[in-house]
């Protein structure tokens, strides 16, 4: 990994970081990846990853919920007429 990779990852993950921090992260990444790399040497054969993982579906039925609209809208960082307000996208 190099500093360009870190910059790219920070952009993808939408994390604003200083140049200094990116340098420090690069060092941490190298050491962590150095540790986790040991899984490369594992012979796993033809094991299927997580064979018992399956989707859990439910009927799309309307059920009454106890959510309070007030508690939810109070959390909005920005709002107008009870609606969530975001910056202009177009």
């Amino acid at each position, binding site marked *: *990994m190099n500093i360009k*990779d*870190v910059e790219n*990852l*920070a952009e*993808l*993950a*939408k*994390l*604003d*970081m200083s140049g200094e*921090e990116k340098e420090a*992260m690069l060092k*941490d*990444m190298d*050491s*962590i*990846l*150095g*540790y*986790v*790399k*040991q*899984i*490369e040497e*594992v012979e*796993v054969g033809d*094991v*299927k*990853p*997580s*064979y018992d993982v399956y989707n*859990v579906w*439910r009927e799309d039925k309307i059920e009454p919920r*106890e*959510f*309070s609209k007030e*508690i*939810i809208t*109070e*959390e*909005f*960082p*920005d709002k107008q007429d009870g609606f*969530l307000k*975001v*910056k*202009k*996208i177009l």
Partner: protein
Amino acid sequence: MIDLKNLTIEKAHESLVKGEFTCKELVEAYLKTITEKNKELNAYLEVYSDAVFQAEEAQKRFTNGTATILTGIPFAIKDNILIEGKIASAGSKILENYKASYDATVIKDLKKEGAVLLGRTNMDEFAMGSSTQTSAYGVTRNPVDTFRVPGGSSGGSAAALAGDLTLAALGTETCGSVREPSAFCGLVGLKPTYGALSRHGIIAMGNSLDQVSPFGKCVRDTEIIFNSLSRYDKEDGTSVPDVVRNKMKAAHSGAKKIGVPWHLFKEGVDKEVEENFKQSLEKFKKAGYEIVDIELPHAQYSLAAYYIIMPAEVSTNLSRFDGIRYGYSANKEVDNLKDVYMKSRGRGFGKEARRRILLGTYVLSHGYYDAYYNKALKVREKIREEVMNAFKNVDYILTPTVPITAFKLGEKMDDPVAMYLCDIFSAPANLAGVPSIALPSGISSNKLPFSIQFMAPHFHENNLFEVGKKFEEIR
């Protein structure tokens, strides 16, 4: 004066039934210790102003005969478990003022029993850490030795219980976050089977691993909490349905065969910890248990696989914190949407959270996905197979809980890998989804607690309680 030090859930319940003290008196006794000690320990981030009111409500159930074993029992709740109308910050600045809009299922159940929620406890930010030092709200100190860490990530709950600032406590585990602080603070910690307790209303870190986990001062306390909270919940897609639970449950008690994977701790384990482990084994031998060597060749890769799978899930889970709907937002200071994301997340997340988000983004990115993430899933599967195969021959797998005892505040903060290694023995149970219990096993020469941990097959918690209680007699 209530003797808080020797109080257990059962003893408290008995006293409440007999009227030796009231729910209010019990809660006030804990509030008094909180006032005395919390400033130094920083176990609680907030103590709820309605705690006494909750106790008065609980008292009514003793009068009208509807009290259960948990009625009036004070609980400390980790800061990543939602309680309607209360702040749940997950130890992070990005959720500093976030008020939960609903109760987690485990909270709903505790309220139904009439338990008293004393407050929310400190934790590593988003449960990312093994020492409660990554919290945005300062470190928590270990009541056993206040110059040392309580372990983590559920360090606040552990310190609250070990310091008699509560009678019961909930934490969460993704990889050792209850067993490791239990070990460092001299408590019992139970990591239940994945899917036993509902995850609904828990702020997710690694969904395929997270599990609500109780602390107790004795095995029986964790058993009582487990029995009250373990149930199928349709709000949680990975909650295990009753038919499957019943099929997997232990068919017999009296399990006596313990497997020890010696090859896993040839190195990296503190001498005194190893010595204590051997002494504990001797005690089991004398008590009629059969001890056998077992091999878990893939288990040594557990932590490496974990540090790929978990960050991958982290980077996905934490993408919801974007400064738009709730939590910290930079929206007043910037002009465009992208900067709202960049600045809110850049400032709101602490260093360890940023580190894991980047790492997760990397292992999931095109070109590395197969080499890291897919490979790690396969290794996980191997580990699970191996653990399940071991259980064909033995009833329990026994290891030390942590390779070391509680370390000093400030240590390991500059070396992520050294910090991660605290959970080397925790990882196999989380990856395989099996239950595991950490048990106090003595005191070191510098007066710090030792701990051993048992693993058992899925939904064999009863066996863990059985062997745990036996150890309380013979240790």
